[in-house]
């Protein structure tokens, strides 16, 4: 099986944007997860449900919502369009679709990790004079680290495999917005099965590696 030149471009593009999307959601996801794990407030359940929605809704539904938000006729989309910023049918659309779809996975994993950090350890640090910021970065994060990384890996895999929201928001434009999933779809549609199977192998390998690492991180007993 010969490797077609587009394979590298498609793979690199997909991995790069999925990585970028994961890095973008990381601070927000971790922050939100901590807030969910530690704080209570009225209507918290509504926020939690909304954050989880992209995980359970059909991806095309989420894609349609994003299209409505960022499309040229919407207030936000139109404002961006007039400033020359394109989201729809652009790599930025790919990134946003990936970020939105993978966000709930990160939040869930990180939240579980934060819940498992004994609050007494944080309280002890506070009695010893540590500021809230210091406690968070020196005590909480390192203890929750493995879960956060596992969540990030899951988010990355999800981002890489994203299809429904991506094809609606960013389209299937070869060389510009075509990710591995979109390319496989395109190749099957146009009868290029050889190329489709090649990309299939790549997606399987990447997904396998990510999930393997993620599970290993979650399975490892605490305090290595």
């Amino acid at each position, binding site marked *: 099986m010969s490797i077609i030149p587009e394979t590298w471009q498609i793979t690199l593009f997909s991995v790069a944007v999925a990585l970028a999307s994961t890095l973008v959601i990381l601070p927000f996801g971790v922050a939100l997860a901590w807030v969910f794990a530690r704080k209570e407030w009225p209507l918290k359940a509504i926020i939690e449900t909304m954050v989880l929605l992209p995980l359970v809704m059909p991806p095309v539904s989420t894609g349609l919502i994003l*299209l409505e938000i960022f*499309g*040229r*006729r919407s207030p936000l989309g139109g404002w961006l369009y007039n400033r020359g910023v*394109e989201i*729809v*049918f652009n790599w930025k659309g790919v990134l946003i679709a990936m970020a939105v779809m993978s966000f709930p996975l990160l939040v869930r994993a990180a939240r579980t990790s934060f819940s498992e950090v004994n609050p007494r350890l944080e309280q002890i640090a506070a009695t010893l004079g540590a500021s809230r910021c210091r406690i968070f970065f020196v005590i909480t994060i390192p203890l929750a680290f493995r879960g956060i990384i596992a969540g990030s890996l899951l988010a990355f895999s999800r981002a890489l495999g994203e299809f429904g929201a991506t094809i609606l928001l960013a*389209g*299937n*434009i*070869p060389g510009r917005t075509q990710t591995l999933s979109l390319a496989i779809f395109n190749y099957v*549609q*146009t*009868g290029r099965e050889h190329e489709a199977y090649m990309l299939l192998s790549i997606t399987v390998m990447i997904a396998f590696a990510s999930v393997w690492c993620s599970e290993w991180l979650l399975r490892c007993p605490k305090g290595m």
Partner: protein
Amino acid sequence: MSKKWLRQVCSIAALFLVTAPPAASADDIVVSAAASLTDALEQIGRAYQFKSKNRVTFVFASSSTLARQIEAGAPADVFFSADVQTMDALERNGRLEPGTRKQLLSNQLVIIVPADLPTVVNSPEDLLDPRVRKIALAEPSSVPAGVYSKTYLESLGLWDKVKPKVVPVLDVRATLASVESGNVEAGLVYKTDAAGSRRVKTVFEVPIGKGPKIIYPVAILKESENKAAAKEFLNVMVSPSGLDAFKRYGFVVLR
């Protein structure tokens, strides 16, 4: 006890027999047709169903997708393509019932823009304007509408400069929808598709004779199990009222 049970079972069974839908009549047909034929064929289909009492199920998609489905064994009785190449490919693979192929319709390509947004496009050359950032086309490597569009733009020497702006979509109706949404500045569709939408504006019609020859052939498929009903459907299509329906939607009738 058992007599009562038996009676209950029998009455339920009778209920099923009475309300069961009629077994798929041998005369129901499946017509796989190019997306651009959606409205015209649905109307003709209603006339056919009324006249013959047979049911017709339409599968509308790009001709290339439909051809692939037929090659993969999808059940269909009639195939109505938007170009000759797709039909030729099926004929080469022996999928057509010999002697049933007809060249029925032609169409025109048009350039459309969103109806309510400002535009700079009045001609194909305007597609090169930097303010035109994205142009929607049906997949130019396989879908007839896209292939015709690409051929036309190539004939004008514009394709290479237009290509980076092209957003390829699944079929010509999806192209129409992209332009309607305003997320692309222009698109190329058939005149018949543009005519059916108030949310797009036609800014340029490719003159007949200038653009690629657009031909819609139709044929009965060899694997069809209802060839008589399929033939009847074809007859309804080529009848004066059938051709009138196509003309009303803007198709050119080749006879």
